[in-house]
């Protein structure tokens, strides 16, 4: 192996799958080999069986749908608020000076710690779930978007001005397109974090969703179902990552040149 030497696409995929196989193999050895008690960790086959019964008998597909809708709903709300604020902060220094200290502070407030308060304010309905995800993502989004917009080469801005650009068109035609691929990447990252918040939100005071199923399974000591739930989250994350990357490559072909 040489540092940074690229590898071919087929071997990249093969390596990627190989680790998954290794992971399942170790898990199988630990469970089928009797090294770990069934009570603590279900074996892969039990997990698949539990997953099948969850989907077929217990309507788990509905829970998955609920969770996805909550994540997307809360995340989209956060984006609607964060995108204009982040762009304004990145482009205009007085706005940055005004908002940055507070947003930096708010970013460290743990979204899960708000759950008791949010239940008090918004009840245990959907609004509360969306708010947890909103609080968890909006401040991160604002700060990261502001940095992406603000990090532009000064000479590109100078060039735009010498070509007759106005202040607004420097923002619209230079700062924004320059930051767009980074912003798309930020969306991908923060959406991943939103998944952690949604499960926490569903663990407390919820009657549907993947997190709710996991709490129920805990009461029944059904580790197979818990693991299946976790793996479903992982798979959804994998698919959404893949979609994001594909869309980004289509939208910003110049960024990967």
């Amino acid at each position, binding site marked *: 192996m040489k540092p940074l030497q690229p590898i071919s696409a087929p071997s990249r995929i093969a390596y990627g799958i190989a680790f998954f196989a290794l992971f399942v193999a170790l898990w199988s050895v630990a469970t089928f080999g009797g090294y770990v008690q069934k009570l603590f960790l279900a074996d892969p086959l039990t997990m698949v069986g539990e997953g099948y019964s969850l989907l077929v008998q217990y309507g788990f597909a509905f829970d998955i749908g609920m969770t996805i809708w909550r994540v997307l709903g809360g995340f989209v709300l956060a984006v609607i608020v964060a995108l204009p604020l982040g762009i304004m902060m990145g482009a205009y220094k007085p706005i940055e000076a005004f908002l940055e200290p507070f947003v930096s502070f708010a970013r460290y407030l743990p979204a899960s710690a708000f759950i008791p308060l949010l239940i008090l304010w918004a009840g245990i309905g959907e609004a509360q779930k969306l708010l947890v995800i909103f609080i968890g993502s909006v401040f991160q989004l604002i700060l990261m978007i502001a940095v992406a917009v603000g990090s532009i080469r000064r000479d590109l801005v100078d060039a735009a001005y010498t070509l007759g650009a106005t202040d607004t068109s420097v923002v619209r035609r*230079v700062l924004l397109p320059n930051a767009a691929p980074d912003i798309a990447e930020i969306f991908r990252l923060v959406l991943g974090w939103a998944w952690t918040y949604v499960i926490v939100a569903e663990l407390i005071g919820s009657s549907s969703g993947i997190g709710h199923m996991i709490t129920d399974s805990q009461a029944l000591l059904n580790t197979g179902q818990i693991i299946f739930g976790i793996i479903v989250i992982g798979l959804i994350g994998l698919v959404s990552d893949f979609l994001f990357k594909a869309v980004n490559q289509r939208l910003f072909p110049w960024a990967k*040149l």
Partner: protein
Amino acid sequence: MSKLSIDNVGKIFPAQRGGQPTRALMPTSLTVGDNDFITILGPSGCGKSTLLRIIGGLETASEGRILLDGSAVSGPGADRGFVFQSYTLFPWLTVAQNIAFGLREKGVAERERLDIARNWADRVGLSSFVDHYPKQLSGGMQQRTAIARALANDPKILLLDEPFGALDNQTRSLMQEMLLGIWERERKTVLFVTHDIEEAIFVGSRVVVMSARPGRIKADIAVELPHPRPYTIKTSPEFVALKERLVEEIRAEVMASGH
């Protein structure tokens, strides 16, 4: 007729963290005639780029004023095209879109914009690269696009800040010929900053030599070489004599600045 008049323009950079303010440019005056091609030659750090950036409106002068066609310059604008030493094409736009950037700012309709952009791409020899992104181009091609982008705006004056400084010698000399060819055809007013003596003589009709920091104009020499100038002119006796004279001028300045 004077196109651009630089009237006692000087620049002092404010003190940084308790240090002394630095004077980059002594009050400097220079008159640029219509269709002149003036090269500003000086050792690095002599304030020649600062002067050009002030004319371009990218820096403010600490004193003096600049008149373009009789009206004072404040801030950057489309009437002064600027080409930078660094590659400043917008990476998210194709060559044609880059060239048309200023036209879109002016509100020119899309079809006309593309026509003008294609025309300029053609004139700088990039007609088969209009749909390429800047990262797919060589350094020389990027600078050609940058020149086309500045000229597509039809500026009153073209300002070039060591545009070929980052290119290899072969490319640089081809670029000089291309720029000279454009100037011979279009008769634009051009101010060209460089530290390369040969380049200053080859493209310029007048070479303005600047002293070491703080910069001031030390000599103003007309280049009496005929047009069109083939690259072979660089070995002619007149060229060599002029080069020797300028080498002396610049040497004295480099020594003075303590290098």
